[in-house]
């Protein structure tokens, strides 16, 4: 069903533009032109975030932190096996995707752990990536409580989701 979203969006917008006799070609070119400049602003932040995440994973620090987190997660109803996923999800989309693959391979998809993992991955975002990128074009450097709040909110969402999975 959702595979129709993107084609329909494009068809609708371009169609309406055509019907209203607007120059879609020039507009498109103008819009697309700003992509390179945007990327130039975003790339440094991407670098910083992804270098840190890769180091975090390879150093095993994430594995160590996860082991500490497991008992705490069990208390609120999240399976301890998911601690690396819960830890990595806000840090790295690609990294957490590979952790998710691992979990499916180890525990399977249609069990409590597999479903919880899907919920954890699917209901949250890469908080650090979003925070860094969204502020990349402004001079703002002090994000105040944005990241801690997003992490807490995502964690509460994870708790709700995982506990609801018990009902399936």
């Amino acid at each position, binding site marked *: 069903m*959702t595979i129709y979203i*993107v084609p329909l969006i*494009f068809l609708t*917008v*371009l169609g*309406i533009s055509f019907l209203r006799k*607007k120059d*879609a070609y020039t507009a*498109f070119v*103008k*819009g697309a032109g700003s*992509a390179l400049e*945007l*990327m130039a602003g975003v*790339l440094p932040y*991407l670098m910083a*975030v*992804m270098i*840190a*995440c*890769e*180091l*975090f994973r390879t*150093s095993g*620090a994430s594995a160590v932190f996860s082991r500490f987190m497991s008992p705490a997660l069990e208390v609120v109803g999240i399976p301890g096996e998911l601690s690396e996923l819960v830890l990595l999800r806000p840090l790295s989309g690609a990294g957490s*995707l590979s952790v998710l*693959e691992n979990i499916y*391979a180890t525990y399977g998809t249609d069990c409590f752990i*597999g*479903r*919880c993992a*899907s*919920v*954890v991955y*699917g*209901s*949250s*975002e890469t*908080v*650090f990536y*979003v*925070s860094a*990128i*969204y*502020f990349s074009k402004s001079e*703002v450097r*002090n*994000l*105040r*409580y*944005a*990241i801690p709040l*997003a992490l807490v*909110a995502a964690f*509460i*969402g994870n708790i*709700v*989701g*995982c506990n609801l999975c018990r009902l*399936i």
Partner: protein
Amino acid sequence: MAFIWIIIMLISIAALIFADPSAVLSSMITGANGAVSLALTLVALYGIWLGLFEVLEGTGIADKLAGLLRPIVRRLFKGESEGTEKFVSMNISANLLGLGNAATPMGIGAVGSMKRGKNRAVATTNMIMLVVISATSLQIFPSTVISMRAAAGSANPADFLLPCIAATVTSTIVGIIGVKLLGRFFEKREAKKERRRNAETPEITEHPIAEKNTGTIKPPRKNDFIISAGRHGE
């Protein structure tokens, strides 16, 4: 963000020095390469979506969409310009449709155009609101996970959908409430500090003869002696 980054870097590099020192550079290279290839992919995607948005702007559909979302956007983001509101509603719409890569350029535009506070390097409450809403994920339909489950052989790939939607809605609502509460809390604190500051150093009213902030006393000008007397000397 700066603090978290440096902590992660220090801990990871320190750990690797003991575990496998050569991995430090190779990991950084892997990470940097990942960033570059991701950036290349994103330039292409951003090009597509930014091009579409420009066309969208021309048709006036963007304004209609912004109109639909305006009541919500106004409640959540007080005091921003129309242009910013448009960016925000495009960002939210793209996120809801699961088009994260389309939403990002809009989000960057929104934050860039938002009104700044006294200190330009500090995020305003509205900026934090937008980032928290995006970071807690508005995506109702997690297509990536469903496809991965199907690929891994799940009998019912979408059976986690209801808990997932509950989770994502909860996290966003908690985030919004959090920003509103913390925003109000910090604003009250700032107001209290301002009041205290004003009480300690009372405003010095204009002296008609001595100019403010100069070391010398300037000779009085003719007008300095005219007492402000209402209209025509009443």
